[in-house]
């Protein structure tokens, strides 16, 4: 059970570190880590789709943006809205759009699915960008932050940090349990071999739709947290750049593992901070994209399984033989999931007649 324990150990240590961080950090550090945790929740929502179910959605920012915009549009400009109804409302708004998009898009496969999810996200983007509904391109403000009765006022950075950490732990726990449950194993089966799942009696469409809606809801939660933190929402929250960035995070971190999404979100943000810091790079900090780009390229070359795969990659190199032959535990997803939507699959015969 070595793998299982080391995974649990890593996760508890990580969350403990996050819990202790505010005591050691300045107010900027708290803001920065709050934002990274929001992106971690967002990355976890995509991990459920891409890593677990093998559905590569390139429009996740739409649900994130809808969660954020719902937060602002539903709260009144004068008195503080209560968390008790605002949070579920935002999650439901995002999940509703996810239901609508999922119901339609899940009929397509592979790269076509990627592009049609992008299409629906761009539609949401332009609705918010071009119509006065969302305040147009300048965006709108959340003037009063939500509260929970007397005990939690999200306007205070520390309260928001705690609440975000709580949300992150809750989502991580929920997805970890879900992944091990019958529903999660069915999703993993759909990723590896949907044909076999149908042959044994699983109607795969409802499973995929359920995963899509849950993922949309969690992305909506991340959007809610983002809006509460910044108090300002802008159409760029729904742009394909953000959908791309969150996809990069979970690939960089390592697909098929919830820890991958966690690590990916932190690595992606901290790498940017690293390359942007004038303390280290002086004037060259202006060209931070070069450093980030080269690091990402290096990670593709050196870390085939993402950052989360590093320990196992080292053990294999040290032990010198395929570790999988003997004591492979029943791991959540085994080696990196072959999210290999056969662009050149058999049913798309490729003669250019």
């Amino acid at each position, binding site marked *: 059970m070595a793998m299982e324990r080391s995974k649990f150990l890593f996760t508890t240590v990580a969350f403990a570190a996050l819990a202790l961080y505010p005591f050691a*950090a*300045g*107010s*900027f*550090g708290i*803001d*920065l880590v709050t*934002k990274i945790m929001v992106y971690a929740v967002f990355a976890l929502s995509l991990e459920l789709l891409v890593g677990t179910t093998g559905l590569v959605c390139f429009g996740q920012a739409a649900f994130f943006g809808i969660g954020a915009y719902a937060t602002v549009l539903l709260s009144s400009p004068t008195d503080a809205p209560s968390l008790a109804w605002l949070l579920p409302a935002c999650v439901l708004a995002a999940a509703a759009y996810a239901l609508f998009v999922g119901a339609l898009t899940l009929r397509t496969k592979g790269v076509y699915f990627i592009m049609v999810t992008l299409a629906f996200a761009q539609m949401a983007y*332009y609705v918010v*960008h*071009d119509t006065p509904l969302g305040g*147009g*391109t*300048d*965006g709108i*403000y959340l003037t009063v932050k939500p509260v929970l009765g007397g005990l939690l006022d999200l306007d205070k950075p520390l309260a928001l940090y705690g609440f975000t950490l709580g949300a992150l732990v809750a989502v991580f726990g929920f997805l970890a349990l879900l992944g091990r449950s019958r529903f999660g194993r069915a999703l993993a089966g759909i990723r590896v071999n949907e044909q076999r799942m149908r042959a044994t009696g699983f109607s795969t469409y409802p499973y995929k739709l359920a995963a899509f809606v849950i993922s949309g809801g969690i992305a909506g939660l991340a959007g809610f947290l*983002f809006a509460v*933190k*910044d*108090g*300002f929402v*802008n159409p*760029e*929250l729904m742009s394909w*750049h*953000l959908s791309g960035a969150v996809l990069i995070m979970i690939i960089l971190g390592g697909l098929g593992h919830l820890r991958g999404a966690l*690590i990916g979100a*932190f*690595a992606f943000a*901290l*790498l940017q*901070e*690293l390359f*942007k*810091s*004038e*303390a*280290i790079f002086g004037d060259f*900090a*202006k060209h*931070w*994209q070069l450093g980030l780009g080269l*690091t990402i390229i290096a*990670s593709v070359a050196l*870390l085939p399984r993402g*950052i989360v795969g*590093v320990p196992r990659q080292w053990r294999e190199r040290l032990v010198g033989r395929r570790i999988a032959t003997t004591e492979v535990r029943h791991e959540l997803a085994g080696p990196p999931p072959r999210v290999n939507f056969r662009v050149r699959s058999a049913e798309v015969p490729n003669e250019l007649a």
Partner: protein
Amino acid sequence: MTLFRTTLVAAAIAGGAASPALAQTAPKLKVGLMLPATGTFAALGTAIEQGFRLYVAEQGGKLAGREIEFVKVDDESDPSKATDNVNKLIKRDNVDVLVGTVHSGVAMAMAKVAKETGTLLIVPNAGADAVTGPMCAPNIFRSSFSNWQPGYAMGEVMAKKGYKRVVTITWKYAAGDESVRGFKEAFEKGGGTVAKELSLPFPNVEFQALLTEIAAAKPDAVYTFFAGGGAVKFVKDYAAAGLKKSIPLYGAGFLTDGTLEAQGADADGLFTTLHYADSLGLPRDNAFRLAYAKSYKLQPDVYAVQGYDAAQMLATGLGAVKGDLSKKAEFAAAVEKARIDSPRGAFTISKSHNPVQDIYLRQVTGKENKLVGVASKSLADPGRGCRS
């Protein structure tokens, strides 16, 4: 050490509290420059920074006795990162003054944080009307313009020229809409009518369809708002479509500012309105242009002027409060009463902290926006929605 651990250590350095400044005489004044260093507006960010640094250098690196220390952040013109970048300057680097930025969406986020934290913010470019409208505040100033101003001035000019039917064309985003709204207000007051308001999604640059619409509508003239790459392409397409001869093209100054080299002959003769021109002939402007060319080996543009004036406004306020920025009310009062001796010509500050300035009519001749005359004298932004 795995990649992950190295980044954690680096972040700890970046995330730690800033080193306290050693105070001998008056403590250093930390100015936070939040400008775009990457993306389409990178060149504008550089020009603004150089203009600001030039004025500080001319004062010997000190304003009101306090040495100036710069802290820079690349805002990437990305609104979703704006709040964090501002917090980095305010909370981590404890800057006393925020200067930024170009993109309106990012400026809106900066204005919100500045309003909440009370930190002094000087906007050196973003023309969003809201910054000196609903979002106005005692500690928020703008050294550039509101989108409304150049539009309104051109509205007056075209009305005076006797045009009756005009078509407007711009991208469908805040800057474009606000500029067209300013234009329409003045043009209709002057007896003209806007036959059609054409727009296309931002950042599309395929103008052929709308150029054909313009030809079909046969207006007396066209008013437009584009900037950067879009401005270059629109002017070239407009000329290539043969409309330049038949339907005169007017626009806000950004259509031809910083883009003349790329537009070449297609831009010759175009009339634009802006609060700056290449041949003002004012002694202050000539001195500024000489100093700028000497320090940076290239001619200044309107963005450099706006950066330069942001520094002047800061200096004026600091002088009045003897370098003590905690006296916010006196700072604001001093700047509101001040008369900024700017290269663009002296200007005062409106109640909503936007420059009350002459908007010049310019014409493109020989790769320069030559001054033709003053389109609107001391035009003040109405600052609608500003209650403070």
